[in-house]
Structures are given as structure tokens and as C-alpha cells.
């Protein structure tokens, strides 16, 4: 609803500032924020008085400030307390509660915290033992630890549980005004009498389902009625009001679903606004993440233009000063108010999602942050915004939400007798504001933002607030810390910001600069309107069908007749994307010859020259995104976001392997031509990843793309050639696996195969290579039966969001995709309905539409297989839930994403490569068996754990056989160089793609192994630990005692167990080497994880052939 030319130009300016460099945004704000010397001095004197008042009052305050001072974030106890508070009350079963309490309380040094804080509340919270009767006096520290320890020892868990539970509820009470709006209104009475007013906030997570949204809507309606009944005609400024979170009102409150937001969410918020207007109370639209700002502004602008609301002065919006666009948002709100001749209530906050914004921008690889990286810059922005608000009294009723004494004083000084109010959070900062609202103080009104809701749902929210405000650098923390001099507390932020020149925080690298040895790939910001329009334009134009042919080294061009194949859009079979000439057997033979001859020049090139070439290729791939994106969308049915993910991954592969080659392969010798056989599910990323690895290690690549996706691969080859890879070093051989792939792999001149695809094909490749005596390389990446285990301490909303993304993103066509969700039975009735509700919200359709969540599956064959699988479950009586298909799905090969509820993980025996999620419930005491059953599938690619209990996480992570284990997040989207990716067992051979070992396998004489385990650098808010362990049971078949001993010792030293043929000397060896070594009649049955063998090459080859024949 951007209407007037003024507003349009303001909005344009806002968009340019979205991720502008920090210095540039801050510079004009400095002058606007600055107070001249005399008022500054007055403000500082006032701030000092306020701060001293807080310090004087602190022993009776006992709020979050005291708590956070005692349990600072950098202490183990502080973190443990927060974790406990966040999770405990939602856990329904006693066993998990006890586990959680033990996990969090047993290890901390709690004694050290007792009696140190003057606040009784802090001590009570530390121990959570008030009800046990052992801690009535907070100074009785001697007995406490002993009491807790002995209770735990004697198995007095119910008592402890009850005590901690009560402490958590006390903690909740401290910061939650009431469990119901009625209770909250009752509790508000006392403070109202002191000069406070309230804005109530009905808390909870964002809605994931329509049911959730309707429930929140009903709760808001009820609350508005209740507040209205008690408002007694006070008016919107003096009376209490309500704050509304838009993401609670609709399950898809995101930019990509703008149409639904406007059609479905708007009527809901309008209804609430009309209700608030009729009750005569204020209603405020809360701020959320930065990528929702324009959406919120658009909804708000529509509300502001409603004639039925024209006479109502209570319409409010929140502006987050930490956003770089904040100052311009004020301009838009002023223009909006004036355009409609009304006055808006505007709450200015600093912003509550700062760390989330930083992490997201890093994960998404965006150019810069939407927020300032330094608090002092946010303070400056705040003062500038406030000044602009005060300058437009006709348009804005300013509501300054801050806990910072200097900010309060500066605003008080700046505002004079203007009409405005302060705001603070319930449970936080009242000790400042008691001085502000008092008639003998500043006599300025303050509105308390007061959360309302059950403690179970509130604590998660609360922990966020505690963390933000309790951080060492936060004002709330510093004001009660006697070590911080008052003068420091009241320092002028403008002067401090000028001193740093507005530069970003040195410890927060810009997203492109996350890695020391290479540039991070650039992400696509699909919340930026310019980017969205460009993407829409790219998707709207199809262009004539592409024509691609095999690309051989010039000397080997083959004149033979080639078969043609049409490539059609899987979302729309009428859309002919291109035609490919498939390579012939003759092409393959000539290509291999050229790779051996002319290709040798590439192998002779210095490592640095190869690396530079790959660096240019990375740049070229990123620059070609406008071509590659629509191509992948049409050829592979990818969503734009997924397609761009591939562009990023392809560029990352090139840069990572280039850096790896420089550091590990300086003196290494390439192996020779490698066949690179790529899958259709990552037609760009994996195709380029294989080729880039081969090339970085100095090996000519013979690239065979998947039959279904030769066009994207051809575009990638053109870019690599353009970057300087010689034609003989990279040849392109499109065609079926049965002919082109088979011919390539059977050619004895190739030095190895890099393969990603099915386990069956990998077995066939193994059989083909087995007879060779020169031990060719086979790196196979195959499928998985990937599971995610969620216990009852996990947050259901996180579990559902992560399971949905893991199972259905890319229509489940990722090797890493989640196939089995295992939910502890105690929470299944909460998690599963939410999951089904979230499934119902998916848009399944043509990915040429940006609002599509799930696109087609690759072809009719895949479609039939997946449908049969789901039908089979239905026939067996399993409960099956499916998402709806959009009408356009009839034109392509779509499958409705499905959730299948099953009884036993053992019933899932093979991978079904599509959007099908099996869900199983497990008993709390059967976790170990569950992991065993998952291991028994033989696959081992990805695995997820959602739990708040470190002990459970460690147990599962150490027991589960999976190459990539993910904790409290989704299980897809491994990042090159950060999360080396690949599985074991039936899931692949290793080494991991995008990891430190990959290139070492492709050359001889590489640098020694890097130290393990390693923490790999990546985005903030995530740790990535890469480690090595044994493969399992290694059969040693060395001839002679010395050879056998050497093999066994080597295998053992790398963490394996060893099995030897049963001979007397093997027995002696076993006795000597210990229990991890054993003998067996047939060491090859059951099949070991690896075999060490020596002797003549015929012996080795014969063994390989036998084992490959399996």
C-alpha cells in the first residue's frame, strides 16, 4: 500500500539502506543524534542521578539485572540456568525432567553464587530449593550444596524436580505479569497507581499452523475485550493497550507468501484493530525480523488508510533502532500519518533479534548486515530517530522504549514538554523508571510492556530477553555492576561513535569475509524487493530451447551420429528446455585418449596456476547466476532459493579446493584422468564439486552429467573453460549411465571415478573397477535413511520447522534429506499435529513462482516410485497425511509431500528419494534401542538430534553411525569447508566432499593429515567439529607374521577393531594386541568395513572381484 510519491521515494531510500555499509548509514545520524554541549551536560547529570538511584535501590529490586550480574553469560552456571529455564516447564515426563535438571545443575559451581548477590531472588533462583525448606535464608550457604548433592544421591529426584520447577515458575512470575489477561490486569493495578500504564503482549512462538494462528487470534480478541472493559474510557495514551505479533496471526508470515499475507492475514489484523478501536484502546504492531519489515509496513499502511479506523488514535507501530533502515522508517511513518491526516503511536525500541540477524546474514552469505554491529551505533540511531519523532508531533505520539539511563536522560532533555511516554519491559528497568514516573521525579509516564501467558510458553521468550539484556555489555547489566563507573555509563554515544568512525565491530566479520583463506559465496536476498523483481523477470522469460553437444578436446571431435534427447521441465512437460546430443562410445574413447595426452599439460601446471584458474571459475559461476538460476529451475524443477544455493555451493567448492590444493598438494603428484559422474539432484553444485576437485588435484576431468540435467552441466563447463581450464582437461560427455558412464568407467586409462548417485550404481562401479591391478580411485556418495530424534526437552516449534525443511525442501530430493522423524512418545501428541498442520501450509507447485515451497520430482519414473511407496503404506494401514497440490501440478511430475506414521523404524528398509517423511514414536527408556535399529539399516549419512540435554546429545552423537550429525537444527545444506559432507556404510566410501581429505585421495604424496579433531570456522552461533575415527572391523590378510602385525597395528592405531584369519601366529598376535583384535574362521564374514591385503597383484585383484561381486 505504498501510495504517495513521497512515500514511494522514502521507501526507495529505505531499500537502498537495507544492507548498506555501517559507516555510510551512521554518518548522517551522528549530527542528528548529537546534543549540544549544555544540554548534553544536563542529560549526563540526570543520567548519573538515575543510575545512582538504581544502584541505591538494587537490593530491593532483585530483577533481571541482579540475576544476570550474578549469573553472567560467560559463566557455565549462567548458561545452565538459562537452558534449564528455557526448557524445564514444557517437559511433560518426569524422567526427562530429572535428566535435564541433573544435566544442568550437577556440573556448575553453584556454591560460588550463593550469598554473593544482595538479591534474595537471585539466590533463590540459583538453587531452586526454596520449597525444600533448606533455603529460607539465602546466607545459609554451607548446607545448600550438601543438601542438593545428598538429595541427588539418595534419589530424591521428585523433591529436587519440584523445587527446581517451582524456582522456574518464580522466575517466570518475575517477568510474566499473569498467566491470563485477567490475572495480568489485576497485577497491573498496583503499578498503574504509581503512574505506569501497560501494553500487554500475548506471548508464544510464531504460528506454524492455521490452528495455532486461530488460537492466537482468539487470545488477542479475548484480551482486547478484557483490556477494553477495564480501560474505562481512559483513552489510548493513558489507558492500557495491546501489542500484536503478526507472525502469530498467520503460519506463513514471510515475504515469499505476500499474497496470502495480504489476503488472509490482513483481515485478521484489521479485525483486531477494529475491535481495539471500538474498545478505545491502543494496538501496536510488534517488530520482528528484518526480512519482515516491509511486509509489516505494508500491512500497517493499509490499516492506516482504513476509513473505519480514521478517528481512532490508537494505531501503533514499532521501529527498531538497530536496523540501518530505522531512521527512514520514521520518515515513512511521518509521511503516512500526514497522508491520512492522523497521528500514529510509534514505539522506538533498540531491537530484540540482533544476534539472530547477524547469524542469518552470515549463513545466507549476504553482502552486509541489516543491523548495526555495535551497540553504540544503535544508541546513536535511537537518538536520531527519537529526534525525528519529536519533530513531528502532529504525526507521531512517541513511545520511547529503553532501559538505558543516558538515553532516558537525553530524551528528557531533548523533548522538553513535548507529549510522549517512555516504555520498559516488565521485570526490567523498573528501578530506573520508578524515578521517572514519580511525581517528585521526572513525572513522565512510562508504559510497561508486559508478557501474558502460561509459564511453559513464556520461559523460552524470556530467556531471549535475559540473554540480550544480561549480556556483559548491556546497560541493564552494567548499571548494577559496581565495577563500572557512573561516568562510563553516561558517556555520550555520539562522541564514542565518532571515535570509532562508525566502523563495524572488528570481531564481527562481514558475511563475505567469514573464511581466512577464501571468499564466502554470495547469497541471494529474497527479502530485497529489487532482487525479487529481478528474479521474477528471469523466471518469466523462457527463451528458445538450448542445444548442447559433447565437448571434447578439439583434436578428438567425433563426426559420428549421436542420439538426441529432449530435456523437458519436470514442472511443465510442455516446456522444452533444451536438446542434447548424447556422447557415443567413440566419443568416450577419444575423450579418454585426449585426457591422457593433451590433458597431461594440466597435470604439469603448478598448483598455484590451477588454483587461480579455479578462483576465476568461482567468480564466473557467481556472475552467471542470472543464467544458471532459471536454467536449473526449468531443467531440474528447483526453487529459486535452492538453485541459488547451488550457485553458492559450486563457487564455494572451486574456492575451497583451490585453497586446499595450495596448502596440501604443493608437492603431490596427480593420479590421472578421472571420470566424474554427477547426479541430477544437484546438477550444478555436485557436478562442479567433482570436477573442481579433480582439477585442483591436477587430474583431467571427464564429466558425465546426469541424463536428466545435461544443460546446467554444459553451462558450468562453458564457465570453467572460460576461466581458463583447457578443453582437454575438462571434457563433457552427456548421456545415459548405461552407455556413456559404463564406457568411461570400463576404460582402463582412467585413474578413478568420482560418483554421486544410487547405492546400486556404486556397487556396479565397484565391480567394474575390481579387476584392475592398479587400484583406481572410487569415491562414491550415495543415499541415506536419515533420521532425526527429538526428545521431550526439545522445543516442538523448532522440531517441526527443522523436520519440515529437512524432509520437504527440494521435494526431499537430497541425499541428506530427513526420512524418519523419531519423536519421544510423551510429546508426540503435541509435535505431530503441529507437523501435520505445517504440512498443510506448503505450496506445492511450479517453482517458476516464487511462492512455491516444493517443486516437482525429477521425472515420471521417480513420481511412480514415490507414489507406490506411499500407497503401499496406506494399504498396510499406516496413517498418511498429504499436502495439497496446486492446480498447475497436473502439467508436471509432482508428488504430494506426505507424512507416514509408522510403528517401528525397522519397517523402513530402503531410501525413497522424494518428499515422504516417516514418523515414529519412541519411549524415553528405549532411546538406545532406537539408535541401534537406525544403525542396523546399514546407511550412515546424516542424523539429527533435538534435545536440551547435553548427556543425551553426546550419547546419541557417539552411538549413531552417520557421517554428518546435526544438533538442534535441520539436517540439510552442508556448507563446503565448514561441514564436510558424506556418509559411511551403504551411504558412501568417503572421503567427505568439501573436507580436508578429499583432495588428498586424488593425488599421491599430499601433505600429512591435518590435526584432528578440528573446529572448522563458519557462521556464528554454530560449532562444527570435524573428527576422524576408525571405520569399524578391519580384516587383515597379510602374508606372513610380520606383514600381519604391521597391518593389525596400523588398523588399531587408527581406531579400528581387527579380525585375522584363525592361525596360531594370528592368535599369538591377538593375545599381544588386546581385546580389539580377534581371529575368525572367515574374517570376511560378516563383511568387514575394510580389508588390508598384500602379496601379488593377482591375489589382491581376485579378492576385490570376489568382494565386489558381493
Amino acid at each position: 500500500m505504498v501510495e504517495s510519491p513521497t512515500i514511494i521515494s522514502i521507501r526507495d531510500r529505505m531499500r537502498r539502506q537495507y544492507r548498506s555499509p555501517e559507516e555510510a548509514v551512521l554518518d548522517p545520524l551522528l549530527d542528528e543524534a548529537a546534543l549540544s554541549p549544555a544540554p548534553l551536560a544536563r542529560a549526563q547529570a540526570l543520567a548519573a542521578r538515575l543510575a545512582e538511584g538504581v544502584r541505591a535501590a538494587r537490593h530491593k529490586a532483585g530483577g533481571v539485572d541482579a540475576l544476570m550480574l550474578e549469573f553472567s553469560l560467560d559463566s557455565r552456571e549462567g548458561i545452565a540456568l538459562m537452558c534449564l529455564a528455557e526448557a524445564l516447564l514444557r517437559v511433560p515426563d518426569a524422567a526427562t525432567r530429572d535428566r535435564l535438571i541433573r544435566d544442568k545443575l550437577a556440573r556448575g559451581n553453584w556454591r560460588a553464587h550463593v550469598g554473593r548477590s544482595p538479591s534474595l531472588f537471585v539466590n533463590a533462583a540459583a538453587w531452586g530449593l526454596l520449597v525444600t525448606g533448606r533455603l529460607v535464608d539465602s546466607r545459609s550457604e554451607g548446607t545448600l550444596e550438601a543438601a542438593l548433592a545428598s538429595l541427588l544421591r539418595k534419589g530424591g529426584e521428585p523433591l529436587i524436580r519440584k523445587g527446581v520447577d517451582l524456582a522456574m515458575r518464580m522466575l517466570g512470575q518475575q517477568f510474566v505479569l499473569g498467566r491470563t489477561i485477567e490475572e495480568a490486569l489485576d497485577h497491573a493495578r498496583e503499578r498503574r497507581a504509581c503512574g505506569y500504564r501497560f501494553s500487554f503482549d500475548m506471548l508464544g512462538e510464531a504460528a506454524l499452523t492455521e490452528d495455532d494462528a486461530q488460537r492466537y487470534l482468539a487470545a488477542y480478541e479475548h484480551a482486547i475485550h478484557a483490556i477494553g472493559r477495564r480501560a474505562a474510557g481512559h483513552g489510548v495514551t493513558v489507558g492500557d493497550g495491546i501489542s500484536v505479533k503478526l507472525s502469530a496471526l498467520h503460519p506463513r508470515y514471510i515475504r515469499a507468501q505476500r499474497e496470502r499475507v495480504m489476503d488472509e492475514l490482513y483481515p485478521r489484523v484489521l479485525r483486531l484493530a477494529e475491535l481495539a478501536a471500538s474498545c478505545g484502546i491502543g494496538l501496536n504492531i510488534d517488530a520482528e525480523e528484518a526480512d519482515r519489515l516491509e511486509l509489516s509496513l505494508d500491512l500497517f499502511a493499509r490499516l492506516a488508510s482504513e476509513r473505519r479506523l480514521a478517528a481512532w488514535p490508537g494505531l501503533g507501530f514499532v521501529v527498531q533502532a538497530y536496523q540501518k533502515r530505522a531512521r527512514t522508517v520514521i520518515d515513512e511513518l511521518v509521511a503516512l500519518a500526514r497522508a491520512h491526516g492522523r497521528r500514529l503511536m510509534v514505539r522506538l525500541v533498540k531491537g530484540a533479534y540482533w544476534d539472530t540477524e547477524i547469524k542469518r546474514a552470515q549463513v545466507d552469505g549476504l553482502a552486509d548486515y541489516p543491523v548495526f554491529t555495535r551497540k553504540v551505533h544503535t544508541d546513536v540511531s535511537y537518538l536520531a530517530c527519537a529526534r525525528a519523532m519529536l519533530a513531528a508531533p502532529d504525526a507521531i505520539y512517541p513511545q520511547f522504549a529503553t532501559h538505558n539511563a543516558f538515553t532516558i536522560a537525553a530524551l528528557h532533555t531533548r523533548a522538553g514538554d513535548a507529549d510522549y511516554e517512555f516504555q520498559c519491559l516488565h521485570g526490567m528497568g523498573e528501578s530506573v523508571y520508578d524515578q521517572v514516573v514519580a511525581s517528585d521525579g521526572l513525572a513522565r509516564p512510562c508504559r510497561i510492556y508486559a508478557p501474558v501467558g502460561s509459564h511453559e510458553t513464556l520461559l523460552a521468550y524470556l530467556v531471549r530477553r535475559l540473554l540480550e539484556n544480561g549480556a556483559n555489555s548491556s546497560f541493564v547489566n552494567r548499571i548494577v555492576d559496581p565495577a563500572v563507573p557512573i561516568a562510563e555509563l553516561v558517556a555520550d554515544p555520539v562522541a564514542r561513535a565518532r571515535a570509532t568512525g562508525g566502523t563495524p565491530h572488528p570481531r564481527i566479520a562481514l558475511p563475505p569475509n567469514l573464511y581466512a583463506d577464501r571468499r564466502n559465496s554470495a547469497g541471494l536476498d529474497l527479502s530485497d524487493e529489487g532482487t525479487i523483481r529481478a528474479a521474477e523477470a528471469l523466471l518469466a522469460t523462457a527463451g528458445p530451447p538450448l542445444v548442447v553437444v559433447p565437448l571434447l578436446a578439439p583434436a578428438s571431435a567425433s563426426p559420428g551420429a549421436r542420439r538426441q534427447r529432449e530435456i523437458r521441465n519436470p514442472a511443465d512437460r510442455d516446456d522444452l528446455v533444451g536438446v542434447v546430443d548424447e556422447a557415443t562410445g567413440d566419443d568416450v574413447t577419444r575423450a579418454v585418449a585426449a585426457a591422457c595426452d593433451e590433458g597431461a599439460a594440466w597435470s604439469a601446471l603448478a598448483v598455484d596456476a590451477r588454483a587461480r584458474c579455479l578462483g576465476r571459475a568461482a567468480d564466473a559461476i557467481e556472475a552467471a547466476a542470472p543464467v544458471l538460476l532459471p536454467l536449473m529451475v526449468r531443467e531440474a524443477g528447483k526453487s529459486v532459493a535452492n538453485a541459488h544455493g547451488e550457485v553458492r555451493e559450486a563457487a564455494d567448492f572451486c574456492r575451497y579446493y583451490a585453497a586446499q590444493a595450495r596448502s596440501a598438494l604443493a608437492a603431490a603428484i596427480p593420479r590421472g584422468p578421472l571420470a566424474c559422474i554427477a547426479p541430477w539432484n544437484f546438477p550444478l553444485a555436485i557436478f562442479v564439486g567433482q570436477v573442481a576437485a579433480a582439477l585442483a588435484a591436477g587430474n583431467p576431468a571427464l564429466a558425465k552429467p546426469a541424463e536428466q540435467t545435461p544443460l546446467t552441466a554444459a553451462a558450468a563447463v562453458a564457465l570453467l573453460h572460460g576461466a581458463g581450464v583447457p578443453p582437454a582437461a575438462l571434457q563433457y560427455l552427456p548421456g545415459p549411465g548405461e552407455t556413456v558412464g559404463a564406457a568411461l568407467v570400463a576404460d582402463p586409462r582412467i585413474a578413478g571415478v568420482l560418483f554421486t548417485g544410487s547405492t546400486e550404481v556404486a556397487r556396479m562401479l565397484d565391480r567394474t573397477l575390481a579387476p584392475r591391478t592398479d587400484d583406481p580411485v572410487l569415491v562414491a556418495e550415495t543415499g541415506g535413511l536419515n533420521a532425526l530424534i527429538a526428545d521431550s526437552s526439545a522445543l516442538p516449534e523448532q522440531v517441526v520447522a527443522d523436520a519440515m525443511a529437512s524432509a520437504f525442501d527440494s521435494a526431499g530430493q537430497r541425499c541428506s534429506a530427513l526420512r524418519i522423524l523419531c519423536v519421544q512418545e510423551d510429546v508426540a501428541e503435541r509435535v505431530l499435529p503441529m507437523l501435520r498442520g505445517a504440512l498443510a501450509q506448503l505450496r506445492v507447485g511450479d517453482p517458476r513462482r516464487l511462492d512455491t515451497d516444493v517443486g516437482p520430482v525429477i521425472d515420471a519414473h521417480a513420481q511412480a516410485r514415490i507414489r507406490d511407496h506411499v500407497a503401499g503404506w496406506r494399504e498396510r494401514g499406516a496413517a498418511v497425511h498429504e499436502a495439497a497440490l496446486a492446480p498447475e501440478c497436473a502439467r508436471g511430475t509432482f508428488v504430494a509431500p506426505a507424512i507416514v506414521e509408522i510403528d517401528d523404524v525397522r519397517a523402513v528398509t530402503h531410501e525413497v528419494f522424494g518428499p515422504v517423511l516417516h514418523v515414529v514414536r519412541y519411549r524415553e527408556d528405549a532411546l538406545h534401542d532406537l539408535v541401534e535399529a537406525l544403525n542396523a539399516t546399514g546407511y550412515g549419512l546424516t542424523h539429527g538430534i533435538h534435545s536440551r540435554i547435553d548427556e543425551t546429545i553426546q550419547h546419541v552423537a557417539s552411538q549413531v553411525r552417520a557421517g554428518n550429525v546435526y544438533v538442534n537444527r535441520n539436517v540439510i545444506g552442508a556448507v563446503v569447508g565448514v561441514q564436510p559432507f558424506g556418509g559411511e556404510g551403504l551411504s558412501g566410501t568417503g572421503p567427505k566432499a568439501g573436507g580436508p581429505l578429499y583432495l588428498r585421495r586424488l593425488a599421491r604424496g599430499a601433505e600429512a593429515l591435518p590435526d584432528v579433531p578440528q573446529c572448522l570456522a563458519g557462521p556464528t552461533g554454530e560449532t562444527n567439529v570435524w573428527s576422524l575415527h576408525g571405520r569399524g572391523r578391519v580384516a587383515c590378510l597379510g602374508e606372513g607374521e610380520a606383514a600381519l602385525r604391521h597391518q593389525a597395528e596400523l588398523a588399531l592405531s587408527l581406531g579400528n577393531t581387527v579380525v585375522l584369519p584363525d592361525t596360531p601366529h594370528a592368535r599369538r598376535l591377538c593375545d599381544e594386541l588386546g581385546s580389539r583384535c580377534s581371529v575368525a574362521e572367515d574374517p570376511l564374514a560378516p563383511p568387514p568395513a575394510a580389508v588390508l591385503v598384500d602379496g601379488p597383484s593377482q591375489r589382491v585383484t581376485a579378492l576385490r572381484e570376489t568382494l565386489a561381486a558381493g
Partner: protein
Amino acid sequence: MPVIAPSADGYDPLRLVAERTLTTNTTASGGNASLLSLEESEPA
């Protein structure tokens, strides 16, 4: 299943090990402690 024979340099130890990547979201409980506890005052 790899059948590993010695080359001129002996056995390749890389083929006897499996790699594991453990990725932990440290912000699941609601905040990024390492970011939030960054000290503010460092100059550029």
C-alpha cells in the same frame, strides 16, 4: 568395501578412517551467547 593393498609408500591410512562432522546450533535455547557477550569497546 575397500580392499587396500600397499603402494610404494605403504598403506594409505586415510582409507582406514571414517570422518565425522558434528554440527551444533548453539543458539537453540534462544540466544547467541558468544555474540552477546562480545565486548563493545574495542576500537577498529
